[in-house]
């Protein structure tokens, strides 16, 4: 009886947790929309003037203002804005003269490709590095990791990109330069997914694949460096927590081999918090890609955003902000939920 009741309470709590999650996420999205709407309002460029031009008469101006719905109360305009965004309408870009939503769908895979390889590099190198630093606490490996992590907070991404280009492309010639492909590989494979590596693999064109990888490697590694710094530091701190526990001492006393103590007994409990950390750094990578894409002329969402900024193309700026913000919120919330589902203590 008692267990049934407590089970029901727990199930109820779980349901409320999920319901609360949906409500909180929805409110956060609404907040994001309110911010982009507000930014669109405070813009010094008069949207009506940019449509009718300087020479329009007062009547033409007023007519355009009413036609654009700018005479209505702000709240009505806001809900109108929310409604059109929900239908996937982000307005038209004045520089590409296409719907912003279409533009974003076209450029987003390029960003995703770079960020995904970046996080892969960050996890594959960062997690073992963090564990290693934790087992050699205070030794040179640990000190090196500490300096490395602090550099991750202090080096400007765009500067590292430029130096990387100067050293590895111009100096050593190890990788290809800016852009996604060399000019003579352009357009050889049909764009099915807009992820160059997958498209090339699907077409079976391995020359294009190698060239795309060579272009991708440097920007992705630089992005990866920043997530590596963060992931390694967090892994080290989680691992140190575990290694100080009594069950680790018990395992050692029982004669369990050291690699097993570290990678099985020590590592298992930190997998769950690590997922959250990896999720957070993936979201941060999407943000960092704005700078890296500008440096590498990478045709992703970051480059689209900065080009739009310089052209004062507000629809494109707000659309990109909205998409990057939404992905950021979604990744954050999902890693939050994953943590709650996977870690029995937080239930």
């Amino acid at each position, binding site marked *: 009886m008692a267990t049934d009741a407590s089970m029901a309470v727990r199930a109820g709590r779980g349901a409320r947790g999920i319901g609360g999650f949906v409500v909180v996420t929805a*409110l*956060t999205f609404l*907040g*994001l929309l*309110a*911010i*982009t709407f507000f*930014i*669109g309002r*405070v*813009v*010094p460029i008069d949207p009506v003037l940019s449509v009718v031009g300087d020479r329009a008469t007062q009547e033409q101006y007023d007519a355009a203002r009413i036609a654009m719905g700018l005479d209505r109360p702000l709240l009505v305009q806001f809900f109108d804005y929310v409604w059109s965004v929900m239908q996937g309408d982000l307005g038209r870009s004045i520089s590409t003269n296409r719907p912003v939503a279409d533009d974003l769908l076209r450029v987003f895979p390029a960003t995703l490709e770079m960020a995904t390889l970046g996080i892969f590099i960050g996890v594959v190198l960062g997690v073992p590095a963090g564990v290693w630093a934790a087992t050699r606490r205070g030794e040179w490996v640990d000190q090196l990791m500490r300096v490395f992590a*602090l*550099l991750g*907070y*202090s*080096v*400007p*991404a*765009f*500067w590292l990109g*430029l*130096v990387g*280009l*100067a050293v590895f492309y*111009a100096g050593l010639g190890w990788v290809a330069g800016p852009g996604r492909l060399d000019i003579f590989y352009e357009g050889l494979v049909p764009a099915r997914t807009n992820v160059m590596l997958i498209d090339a693999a699907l077409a079976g064109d391995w020359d294009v694949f190698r060239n795309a990888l060579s272009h991708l490697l440097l920007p992705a590694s630089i992005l990866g460096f920043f997530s590596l710094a963060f992931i390694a*530091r967090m892994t*080290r*701190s989680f691992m*140190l927590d575990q290694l100080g526990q009594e069950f680790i001492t018990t395992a050692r006393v029982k004669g369990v081999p050291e690699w097993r103590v570290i990678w099985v007994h020590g590592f298992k409990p930190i997998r769950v918090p690590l997922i959250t950390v990896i999720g957070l750094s993936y*979201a*941060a990578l*999407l*943000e*960092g890609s*704005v*700078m890296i894409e*500008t*440096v590498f002329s990478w045709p992703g969402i970051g480059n689209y*955003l*900065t080009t739009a*900024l*310089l052209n*004062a193309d*507000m629809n494109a*700026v*707000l659309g*990109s*902000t909205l998409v*990057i*913000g939404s992905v*950021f*919120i979604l990744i*954050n*919330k999902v890693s939050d939920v994953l943590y709650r589902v996977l870690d029995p203590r937080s239930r």
Partner: protein
Amino acid sequence: MSTRDWLLDDSPATLTQANLGRAWRMFSALMRNPLAVAGLLIILLLLATALFAPWIAPESPVGQNLQRRLLPPSAEHWMGTDELGRDIFSRVVYGSRITLMIVALVAVISAPLGLIIGAVAGYFGGWVDRILMGLTDVFLSLPKLILALAFVAALGPGIENAIIAIAITAWPAYARIARAETLTFRNAEYIQAVRLVGGSHGRIIFRHVLPLCTSSMIVRVTLDMAGIILTAAGLGFLGLGAQPPLPEWGAMISRGRTFILDQWWVATMPGFAIILVSLGFCFLGDGLRDVLDPKQGGEK
């Protein structure tokens, strides 16, 4: 009785003595941490450079001389010259003033804003808390750089707008800290006592709650400085922050972008200045956290 003994006296006679003693203990704890000392030295160097820029820099930061453009680093021009023949070292020296101004203004705007919002939310609770913290959470869950970019796009490029945009994205973290701290002593007896003697809400918040949040706030602001410097440099790099001919480090890197393959020094040199100063704030922040906020220093 030496000054040191007076400072470390276990039973201070006056409030001033107690405060000075506390400050002295913290300072000596900080001095025992080599990284924190390094950070402090770097920041003192930044301050001195900004203050004495005209005496340190061998040349004017804006004076052009097209006959000696793009010269590599040499004894005469330590960091080489840029595409208009300006001495890069002199520009980096003057640039320290801009960097210092940006971090100082962002801190002065966003820290008090966050403090007051957080303290009000935590002190009053209920609906005030829910609305203010809801707003804070929305800002916290958005990417800072992107938000700053969008705000600058709306306000127009320029260093003042860049500062405002960065401040807008920086306050939520401080509000969270201030609220958490306020909650811990909202119902403390000494607050009740102030209320009983008729202290107003404003007086309680400003005189008795906020001063207790300052130490964790100082730590957080110092740790955030590196991020603020990077964001400001990023805005400058994209052409949205400081405008030419201002010698802002990020904008200087952006100018050097065109020459990166042949004249590497133009873009590289200002970057070292950014890294050095950011590292300085990171080191000092880490050290301050260990001294002022031992409970958060679990990583050591």
